């Protein structure tokens, strides 16, 4: 059993082969098939890859990720392998190319073990919206693992792979990380190329890693980050050495007052936050409450803008060029309508309808343009905080993982993301650290958010916080 890359490397140095490591993970996946974390295991190609990496290790020219076994959220393209976004509409789709982030992992000799269940088109906070069934939380199988990257979180939590990739549009990496006691990173918008990520909301989406150690999170970011000819929103800023953690100097840390005062936040989450604040103060850091009276506007703004972008991005599914086509279809219009209505699940259709509404001629200014204006207000106000502070800390989720089928109202489900959508609305990097342990035994995350492209500060502080907390 290899929970992190350090354990893998230790095994490698004692003579265990990558193939043997892969086989250990494969049997672990088999034992845990009831979690429904993997939609498909790439058994043949992962073994082939492992043999090649073993050869490279012998020859002394293996890459930095030799021995790391990675699972991909089912919305990341890997050439010659299926990718479905957990949707009927893409059920038999095969990737024609490999996305940039995935390619960079392969170039450093990571092996890809399979694709992981998620909410359909990454829309959801519980992984109950997958067309291929819900994922169970390995810590307690009656609970959700969070979403939308629920399969990735569950797989890393249960030790079914060394690390996994997810995507985070409003919390889809950090919220499931909180629910499964793993590390989940959403980098700055533009830090990792989105080429080869099936789009949900393009001005929000970011790829990021799930890991069982902060070192592995930093390493994967370091390898995946950097500019890319296939994504013009990917930044040209140089990639820093995130893996060399330095002890931070005395810091100024902001706590969003409203995040601790909002109704519905578990009292144990609040007391953990207060405990961390006290420890940081004792270590000589300045920790101050900052009022940010926009908390209640964030999730509505997020839904105006992401549903609009989703309705546009998902218009490509027409039943003609690829994906599902209704057998009922006669004529062009009916081909579109029947294929889409039969192929998309209820939550995806709900969001396409909401997004089409806010983009429609009559309501565009009142909703979509208004949402973009509020987004600027949120970003400016957040930038103001970072003028005076180095970092911000807040809970990742209001509570611990909830029961499968417990949250039925869409709006209540949307409010799951109350503390995570901030970073996506403003583009900031944020990480969920598994620091909380509830009296029920369940984990919960503490979130650290940094200024744009300050991932280096984020990792320095996170590794330090783990030490002292």
């Amino acid at each position: 059993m290899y929970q992190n890359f350090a354990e893998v490397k230790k095994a490698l140095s004692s003579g265990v082969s990558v193939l043997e490591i892969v086989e250990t993970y494969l049997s672990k996946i088999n034992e845990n098939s009831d979690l429904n974390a993997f939609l498909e295991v790439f058994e043949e190609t992962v073994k082939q890859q492992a043999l090649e990496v073993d050869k490279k290790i012998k020859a002394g020219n293996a890459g930095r990720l030799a021995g790391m076994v990675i699972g991909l959220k089912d919305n990341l393209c890997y050439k010659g392998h299926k990718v479905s976004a957990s949707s009927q509409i893409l059920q038999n789709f095969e990737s024609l190319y490999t996305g940039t982030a995935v390619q960079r992992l392969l170039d450093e000799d990571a092996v890809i073990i399979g694709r992981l269940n998620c909410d359909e088109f990454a829309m959801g906070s519980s992984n109950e919206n997958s067309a291929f069934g819900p994922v169970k939380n390995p810590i307690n199988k009656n609970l959700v693992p969070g979403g939308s990257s629920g399969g990735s979180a569950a797989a890393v939590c249960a030790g079914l792979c060394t690390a996994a990739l997810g995507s985070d549009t409003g919390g889809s990496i950090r919220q499931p990380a909180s629910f499964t006691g793993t590390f989940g990173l959403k980098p700055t918008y533009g830090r990792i190329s989105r080429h080869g990520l099936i789009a949900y909301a393009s001005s929000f989406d970011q790829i990021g890693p799930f890991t069982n150690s902060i070192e592995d999170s930093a390493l994967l970011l370091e390898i995946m980050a950097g500019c890319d000819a296939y994504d013009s929103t990917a930044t040209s800023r140089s990639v820093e050495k995130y893996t060399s953690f330095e002890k931070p100097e005395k810091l100024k840390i902001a706590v969003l007052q409203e995040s601790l005062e909002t109704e519905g936040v578990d009292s144990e989450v609040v007391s953990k936050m207060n405990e961390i604040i006290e420890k940081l103060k004792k270590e000589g850091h300045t920790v101050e409450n900052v009022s940010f009276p926009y908390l209640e506007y964030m999730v509505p703004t997020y839904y105006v803008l992401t549903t609009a972008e989703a309705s546009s991005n998902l218009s490509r599914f027409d039943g003609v060029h690829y994906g599902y086509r209704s057998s009922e279809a006669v004529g062009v219009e009916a081909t579109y309508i029947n294929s889409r209505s039969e192929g998309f699940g209820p939550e995806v259709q709900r969001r396409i309808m909401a997004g089409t509404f806010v983009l429609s001629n009559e309501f565009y200014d009142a909703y979509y343009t208004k949402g973009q204006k509020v987004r600027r207000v949120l970003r400016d106000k957040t930038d103001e905080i970072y003028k005076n502070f180095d970092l911000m800390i807040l809970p990742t989720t209001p509570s611990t993982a909830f029961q499968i089928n417990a949250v039925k109202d869409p709006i209540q489900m949307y409010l799951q993301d109350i503390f995570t959508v901030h970073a996506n609305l403003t583009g900031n990097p944020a990480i969920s650290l598994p620091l909380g342990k509830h009296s029920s035994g369940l984990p919960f995350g503490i979130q650290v958010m940094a200024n744009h492209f300050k991932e280096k500060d984020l990792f320095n502080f996170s590794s330090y916080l783990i030490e002292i907390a």
Partner: protein
Amino acid sequence: MKITDEIVDHIAHLARLKFEGDKKIAIKEDMNNIISFMDKLSEVPTDNVEPLIFMSDEINVLREDIPVVSLTQTEALKNAPKKDSDYFRIPKVLDK
């Protein structure tokens, strides 16, 4: 903002989706809830605020226009629900 049957029909047409019977009742209710949730935004003063459109600070990322084969015809047709050797096939458009 109240979502009516007419609005549902109009939006469904734009989105190329269809909702009939119970599904229509459900989507109307969901849209009413979601849109009234979105209505919260009107409370935020945004006079003289420009909409934030681009999240990336990269401006005009350009590259040389070099012709390369990105997808072959065979690859492009690979995932088609119906095809022949050269074309996507679609259901009949005309009756004759």
